[in-house]
């Protein structure tokens, strides 16, 4: 009896200590992440959107292999990733982001201020084209100290109007003659809804994308949702005429024409899905979205059309934004070196070096991945045109179905996203857009007045 009791005691005691040890060993495990494995620097990078086609992953893996061959001391570990305003903070706080991750232009400044991005200035300045960036683009990732913490990568986009050519044809519309005014958009949307039963026009409403696209619609009508004052503080101007007009427009399409379908809870990825599935006739989103429509939603290229967002009224402009590549603060020096090498290889060299551009395009084409999706220049426009010439023979996206956009985008005034508390502002507008689309009697003036007051309170709080 005695001995079995002692054994039980010892076992129980040992169990408790094992538990304690298991809990405290977390820091040891983390040690692996900051350094090396088998003498190689381990670098976790963003790969593609979750749920992308196998061919897209094949092409990505091929690029990783090319990179590792050129950099035998680096071990690249790709991770699927989609930036969402509503999950990013949790990922950042939880330390589950890859070492190299992507953020929108709008978040760069604040993340830098909060010390949440690694200082990669030294590595960045060593890049041969470090001085060639369009300064307006580069400043999104530059801190108040003048150092670069995040590098413009992947894409700079202008918003375009994406449309489904098959639905246009079914509605008796000419897909080669897309609408150029908001009235034409409305008429075409009604025609599509009446003829096909699908949504003629749709807009995002969730995860701050509703506010993002309402800002697009506001700019297109000459409105602005925020002004920057001389002392660097921001004033919310959500209840401006452009936004009101944009909301009344949505209201009319939804409630008078019934041409916006039946689903109004859509974010970036779900509207892409609905569009590729032929449930949406037209919607506005970044000009670069075609790539993920192919990679993630298997869109039929013949059905895809892209044209410019109609601009009406004084001061009307196209919202432009983009993506920055940044490095986690937990990265070691060796990882930062490796990270910038990867950013150079995967995102940027193909824009600045002919051999790299051709090699990149060939790799993508070999796996049937889109090459040549229209974006805006990260460097100068001449340089962009030149880089497009290098790969002209390899372009496999239906550029002739995108001329409505590519012919005019460099003549359209580009307006950056609101700079102060951008995502909070977008979030407040989400609610307004949802209210207008789901409640016929929504009071647009009152909603905007309330949202404006809410956002101003956030701006004041963040300024203080």
């Amino acid at each position, binding site marked *: 009896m005695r001995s079995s009791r002692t054994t039980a005691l010892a076992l*129980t005691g040992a169990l408790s200590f094992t538990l304690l040890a298991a809990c405290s060993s977390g820091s040891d495990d983390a040690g692996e992440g900051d350094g090396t494995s088998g003498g190689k620097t381990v670098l976790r990078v963003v790969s593609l959107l979750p749920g992308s086609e196998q061919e897209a992953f094949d092409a990505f893996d091929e690029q990783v292999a090319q990179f590792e061959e050129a950099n035998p001391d680096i071990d690249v570990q790709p991770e699927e990733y989609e*930036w969402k305003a509503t999950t990013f*903070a*949790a990922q950042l706080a939880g330390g589950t982001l890859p070492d190299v991750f992507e953020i929108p232009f709008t978040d760069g400044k604040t993340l830098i201020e*909060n010390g949440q991005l690694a200082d990669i200035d030294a590595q960045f300045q060593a890049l041969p084209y470090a001085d060639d960036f369009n300064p307006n683009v580069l400043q999104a990732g530059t801190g108040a100290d003048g150092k670069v913490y995040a590098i413009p990568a992947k894409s700079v986009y202008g918003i375009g109007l994406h449309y489904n050519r098959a639905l246009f044809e079914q509605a008796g519309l000419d897909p080669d003659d897309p609408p150029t005014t908001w009235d034409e958009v409305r008429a075409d949307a009604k025609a599509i809804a009446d003829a096909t039963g699908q949504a003629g026009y749709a807009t995002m409403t969730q995860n701050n994308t509703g506010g993002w696209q309402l800002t697009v619609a506001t700019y297109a009508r000459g409105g602005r949702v925020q002004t920057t004052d001389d002392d660097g503080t921001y004033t919310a101007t959500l209840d401006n005429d452009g936004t009101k007009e944009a909301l009344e427009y949505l209201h009319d399409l939804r409630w008078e024409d019934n041409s916006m379908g039946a689903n109004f809870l859509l974010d970036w990825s779900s509207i892409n899905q609905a569009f590729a599935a032929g449930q949406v006739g037209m919607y506005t989103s970044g000009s670069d979205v075609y790539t993920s429509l192919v990679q993630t939603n298997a869109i039929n290229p013949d059905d895809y059309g892209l044209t410019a967002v109609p601009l009406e009224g004084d001061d009307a402009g196209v919202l432009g934004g983009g993506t920055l590549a940044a490095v986690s603060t937990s990265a070691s020096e060796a990882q930062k070196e490796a990270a910038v090498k990867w950013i150079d290889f995967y995102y940027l060299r193909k824009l600045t070096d002919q051999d790299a551009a051709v090699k990149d395009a060939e790799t993508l084409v070999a796996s049937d991945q889109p090459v040549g999706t229209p974006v805006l220049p990260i460097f100068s426009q001449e340089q962009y045109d030149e880089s497009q010439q290098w790969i002209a023979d390899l372009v496999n996206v239906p550029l002739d179905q995108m001329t409505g956009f590519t012919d005019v985008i460099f003549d359209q005034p580009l307006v950056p996203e609101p700079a102060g508390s951008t*995502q909070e502002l977008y*979030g407040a507008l989400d609610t307004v857009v949802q209210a207008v689309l*789901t409640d016929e009697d929504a009071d647009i003036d009152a909603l905007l007045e309330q949202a404006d007051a809410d956002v101003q309170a956030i701006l004041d709080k963040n300024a203080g």
Partner: protein
Amino acid sequence: MALTHDARAARPRRTPVTWVRRGGLSTLVFAMPLLVVFGLFSWLPIGRAVVMSLQETNLVTTAWVGLDNFRTVLADPLLATAVGNTLWFAALALLLGYPVPLLAAVLMSEVRRAKGLYSALAYLPVVVPPVVAVLLWKFFFDARPEGVFNTMLGWVGVGPVPWLQDAGWAMPSLVLEATWAGAGGTIIIYLAALTSVPGELYDAAEVDGASVWRKVWHVTMPQLRGVLLITFILQIIGTAQVFLEPYLFTDGGPANATITVLLLVYRYAFGQSLGGDYGAATALSLMLAAVLAVLSVVYFRLTRSWSQA
């Protein structure tokens, strides 16, 4: 009683040695695993939450702000909406989710053949991972006339119903799914409780000429009283913390029609990409916990006599 008496008598002579001899050490060692697990994963986080609710922190820099977080939360116009929505959810869930499992359990206990099959069918939704269930239901809830539910309603000439796409319909839709997902567990509890009802009571009632409904009302219900009281308060606590359905179905929309207290907590903490207000999030969590604790105590006080009678 005898135990405390014993301990009291022993107190004057207690030394560390007698404490060990009397088994104090082994008690402690046996309690250790439990203490470690609870301490690390329950009590420590709760303690951290209390501390954090008095701070303004981005997990890197931290400042003490006293009760500011509580003031911020109480001044937030969304709080009233969230509380209202949560109460609405709780009320609907009570109306639908409380009687349905009871009815199902009573009916199932009357079934003579293939009892196990019915239990398994009833419990199946609980086994389906909640996220999968929500994605399925999202598909069913398609608001277009050709959506699954709308097609079915169309057969009987009803609808189409906007389901999640309308501020008025969104919450009942969530409750419908939540009831489907949660009923199985409660049904199993009721079934277990029903087997403990002595058969003689039913026999006696039958001899007295009681109908089925009189038997249910006068025999089954009183015998299930204890269990019913517990599932009631568990249901209240559960629905007050509803998060999964509104988060996955609607993210609080349309136009905040389904934002709940817990979803608001989540939004405070993680809703914005640039880092959240963890202080406000913990402050609201603590307020919710306090309300639920008070509610539980009041509830058990009020029903004490009934449950013991």
